[in-house]
Structure formats: C-alpha cells, structure tokens
C-alpha cells in the first residue's frame, strides 16, 4: 500500500506500470485518474488545492487500509496533489489490485467516494471573474451511504 501527497505532477504511465508489476496473484488492476476540469464557461485559469499536512496523509492511509481490508485487495495506491493546477492537469490517482475485477472496481469507487469528502483537501477555483472556494456537494456526502 502506498500513499503520496505531493505538489509535483506524477507520471500516470510510470505509476501504473510500477503498481501493476508489484505482486502476482492479482487478476485485476483498476486505475482512476482525476483531472482538473474547466468550468462550463471555459474560463477556469487555475485550481488551487489546500490541504492539512499530517492529517491528509493519515486520513488517506486510513481510507486505503479500509479499502484493502474490505475488498481483500492485494495492493492499493493513492496519489493526491496540492498547490496550483491548471485545467487538464492530473490532480490525483488511485489504483487497486485484487484477485477479481469486481473487487478492484468497487474498491476504486470506495476510495474515490471517501477521498471526496473525508480527506482534508479544499479546492479553490480561479477565473478571470475572481476566485471562489468550491462548495462540497450533498451528493458527495450521500455517496458514502452506499458503503
């Protein structure tokens, strides 16, 4: 299990390749990548991500450990960036390795649902018109009830 919180970009192909050759016994590897999306008007110049150093790493490790236990994963990887990112940049990725694909897919969704509302990150959108904190969505909180 590996958890990384970093400002620098990560290489998706390299991280996926490294994760995939980690262990035998995994019949299924799922990866998910989050990308900075432009707003509907196409005016987003940057996304700033603030986090809580110390608690972020701790929360991510706990969430990843829960996923490993609950979905009987062989391995899990979480990389989440902070700082100033522009549209199109990769914000984060998760990877899960399980014996069977259903567990690998479910674990990736579980990780994403928990990362959204239980990991201490806060997004701020910078546009030509100004800056605003991104509000948490009720549906993100509701998504946790599924688990």
């Amino acid at each position, binding site marked *: 299990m590996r958890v990384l919180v970093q400002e620098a970009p990560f290489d998706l192909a390299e991280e996926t390749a490294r994760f995939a050759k980690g262990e035998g016994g995994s019949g299924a590897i799922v990866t998910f990548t*989050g990308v900075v999306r432009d707003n509907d008007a196409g005016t987003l110049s940057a996304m700033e991500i*603030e986090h*809580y150093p*110390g*608690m972020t790493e*701790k*929360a991510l490790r706990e969430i990843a450990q829960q996923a490993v236990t609950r979905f009987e994963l062989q391995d899990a990887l979480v990389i*989440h960036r902070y700082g100033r990112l522009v549209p199109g940049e990769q*914000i*984060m990725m998760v990877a899960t390795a399980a014996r069977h694909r259903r567990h690998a897919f479910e674990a990736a969704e579980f990780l*994403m649902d928990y*990362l*959204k*509302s*239980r*990991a*201490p*990150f*806060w*997004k*701020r959108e910078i546009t030509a018109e100004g800056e605003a*904190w*991104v*509000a*948490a969505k009720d549906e993100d*909180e509701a998504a946790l009830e599924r688990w």
Partner: protein
Amino acid sequence: MDVLYFAWVRERIGLPRERVESTAATVAELVEELRGREERYEMAFSDLSALRVAVDQELTDFDAPLQGAREVAFFPPMTGG
C-alpha cells in the same frame, strides 16, 4: 493547544494557526470562547453546520471532549478527489 484554520475559515479569521490557552471541556465550548473574542471569529463560526472539526487530526463532532488535545482544526466540508 494549537488551533488551525483552513480554506475560508482561515481567510475569515485571518491566520492559519494560533496558540490558544483554554480550559474548554469540549469543542463547542472552545468555539464559544473564540466567538466571544472578536467579530472575525463570530463571522467564521456563525454557522456550525457549515464547519467540520478535527481533534488531533481525527474528524470528530462539536461535542467531542478536548481533554489532552494538542491540536484542534476547523474547516469547511472537504472537497478532495
């Protein structure tokens, strides 16, 4: 204890962290003490339903005890992922 603020809570209060000497028994009591200080605290803590709290880097509730706590953090609902 150290009290930390993130995102718009940090902006409203005007600092990222501060040392607070308090005898508050719970998070809610600490919030009341802070609200009584100055208007910027009153503004930041006016709607607790819009806030989340962590004690020693664990998410918790406003009625959580503070005995032995070293670090209390206030912030809006998280927007990771």
